[in-house]
């Protein structure tokens, strides 16, 4: 659609660069928002895997983070709040030839979309789920999300919600995700590698990205100092869970990689014609 894509596809089989995956629409994000770097992690990952925009689809819900599809040159779907994983699963199951990546936020993915998250982990359709977690609802101007700290003061929850924070990685493991990683938007290269690794891994891959909201959580600029490389990379989900459960949320890297078979339907490739089905009704 953009100049970049057109020329890219003209070049047909020549490998694309990260820049070829970036569209020319200007993001609506606040200056300094962590999500800018995530766009670049996506484009790096796509380029590094030799994907082509026409065979790649990025599906999202609603939120600042969910705006990503239009900023890429791949196919995109910007649906309703919280349902991106379902749309993506439908797409991938109907079109197994496509590379399907889902972009979400902590509100979109863990609050309204929580059920689809659990069931996507369990269903293990071969796709990659990237959540830009800023511990806040950015788009609606600053309400607590499931990952918000219990004492964070806001207009909607004066003095804080008092609620235990949601541990997305632990839930992902408990629900059966096959690949679990955490990235930091301040490290677009490393995060790009995580996303590439996630896409390459068969089945449902989950990448949580710490992506600061500079407008409603300016203190998240400090995350840069808190993150560190993850000490673990285990294929025992119970051990991974225990370690993740006790981590402070700032370990970066691949935290779990399993060996589950991806979900697929055993369809005999059009063994019958529709008219053959009539035989069951005929008297």
């Amino acid at each position, binding site marked *: 659609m953009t100049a970049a894509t057109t020329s890219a596809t003209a070049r047909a089989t020549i490998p694309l660069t990260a820049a070829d995956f970036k569209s020319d629409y200007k993001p609506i994000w606040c200056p300094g928002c962590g999500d800018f770097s995530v766009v670049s992690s996506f484009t790096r990952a796509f380029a590094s895997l030799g994907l082509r925009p*026409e065979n790649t689809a990025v599906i999202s819900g609603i939120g600042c983070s969910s705006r990503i599809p239009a900023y890429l040159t791949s196919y995109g779907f910007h649906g309703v709040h919280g349902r991106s994983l379902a749309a993506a699963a439908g797409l991938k199951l*109907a079109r197994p030839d496509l590379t399907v990546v889902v972009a979400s936020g902590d509100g979109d993915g863990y609050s309204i979309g929580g059920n689809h998250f659990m069931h996507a982990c369990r269903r293990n359709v071969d796709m990659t789920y990237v959540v830009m977690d800023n511990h806040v609802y950015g788009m609606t101007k600053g309400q607590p999300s499931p990952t918000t700290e219990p004492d964070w003061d806001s207009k909607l929850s004066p003095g804080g919600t008092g609620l235990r924070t949601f541990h997305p990685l632990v839930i992902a493991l408990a629900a059966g995700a096959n690949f679990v990683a955490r990235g930091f938007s301040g490290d677009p290269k490393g995060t790009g590698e995580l996303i590439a690794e996630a896409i390459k891994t068969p089945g449902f891959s989950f990448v949580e990205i710490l992506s600061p909201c500079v407008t409603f959580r300016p203190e998240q600029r400090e995350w840069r100092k808190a993150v560190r490389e993850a000490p673990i990379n285990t294929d025992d989900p119970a051990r991974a869970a225990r370690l993740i459960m006790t981590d402070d949320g700032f370990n970066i890297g691949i935290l779990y990689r399993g060996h589950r078979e991806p979900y697929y339907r055993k369809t*005999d490739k059009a063994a019958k014609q529709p008219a053959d089905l009539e035989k069951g009704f005929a008297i």
Partner: protein
Amino acid sequence: MTDSRNGSGAAARTSISVAITGSGGAGVMTAGNMLLEAAAKAGWYGLMVRSSGPQIRGGEAAALCRFATRPVDCLDDRFDVLIAVDWENLHRFADEIPLDSASLMVGDPTQGDPPEVFAKSAARYERLGIKGMAKAIQGSWPNMVVVGVAAGLIGLPKDVLRAVVENMLKKSRAGLAPSLAAIDAGYEAGETMQAGEKLAAPAPRSESRWLITGNQAAGYGAIRGGVRFVAAYPITPATEVLEWLAPALADVGGTLVQAEDELASINMIIGASFGGVPALTATAGPGLSLMTESLGLAVAAEVPIVVIDVMRGGPSTGIPAKSEQSDVSIAVNGMHGDAPRIVVAPNSVADCLMSTQWAVHLAEATQSPAIVLSDQFFGQMRAVVDRPKDVSYQGARLTAAGNTEGYKRYSLTESGISPMAIPGTPGIAYTADGLTHNERGIPSSGAKDHAVQLAKRERKLLGHEYGDYWADVEGDGETAVVTFGSSTGPVREAIARAKADGVPVRLVSMRLLAPAQPAKLAAALAGVKRVLVVEQNHGGQLLRHLRSEFEIPGEVQSFRRPGPLPIRADEVHRQLVQWSNQ
């Protein structure tokens, strides 16, 4: 009309209604299915409706059968015969099995007496030791005796019945020989009972026929229309659409997924259809309600999808296993924002196939969501139908060619239909969006973009040429009945009776509920003085919908009643004659 009403005519009858009832485990459904299949093989038409009490399993049950020489789409007003294996809790079916003095009740005196409600109908009571007869034949069951009695009463050829029973019991554990013996014993009893005339001999078969439920028909219509992806969440009475589709789709290279809930299922089909694969879900009222938000997404992002709503009693969880036509309002109006959609309602079991196929075609052609309003009555009824004709309606979506220069997904074409880029096509990748967007799909809050895109979406639907398929229009006269769906059958019978009374009445059975077709409706009703709107719900939802779109000519009356009892031809007939004679 050679129909001899109330069994009092001299000629053989063209329609006989038989109810078979009994408590849990009595096997009344098996009995009904055997009879229906045998009648079909013998060349008759017919149908069977299943009814049961509140118990999940093991409660009282009734197989409501009608056998006829012509195609029938509804139950008769009354039953000619009621055969009870036992009488336990059978008063619960009193409303569903109207008897009168010309009816015959057959029951086992060792199983107690008919309940008060049936007894006071003045139907003749024939006592038959059903249990004892079965007991006398080792390995047989009372329901087989009942099959025999019913077959004997209506005059079903014994050899046809035998063949059907042999085939059906092939896979069952029950011994075949004792069953056949029990049937024979029953047949003899039935044949010789004092009852009305037997069913007239069937006309020779011209076309091939099917024995099918509305839910199966809808499933097959979906596949014929091109659907190859289905995601759904189980719900009564739509589940059988899915259960039929699961293996069938696999056979034709498609996929069915059970979703975690209806929010997932509708978004899954939207995703699949965005990927270029015609996609469908089936649900009932509660599920349709949950899908409301994402139906709007399909409107805004212009993704064709089909949602079958097999209507049941509402509101809320309502009456899950009984029919009602009360989802019209939500189907035609239930989305936030201005969200034009297609709503199609089949008006017979066979039409569940045609209408679903048409809905797939319309959804694909207009890149819009289409809702198919079937109902529990059609969905779970099993009927003998003429094989629906092959039609060309097939999902055909306008797609965009690769590398189209300056491609705009939501371009403002004259028809409103814009070529859709299908993932995999190079050089025209775009982002589909549920936000208001410009022609390229980029979010916009501009008044102009909003207005033109709204107008485009409306234009797509209003401009489509729906042909004659929008309604079944029959007959003439100064009185007309406008109806839809499963109320069409009884209305058609009522109109036939009125005609026999010398009162000609037009029928308009609407298949396309939305977008409304005011010009076509006006033409169909040209010159009428009286319009009766018939529907099975409390609030008059079809009437309200019609009025909101169209000035109905002449005097208007509403005939309506909520479920679960079906509209009866007799009631409509009486109202028509009375009104027309005023």
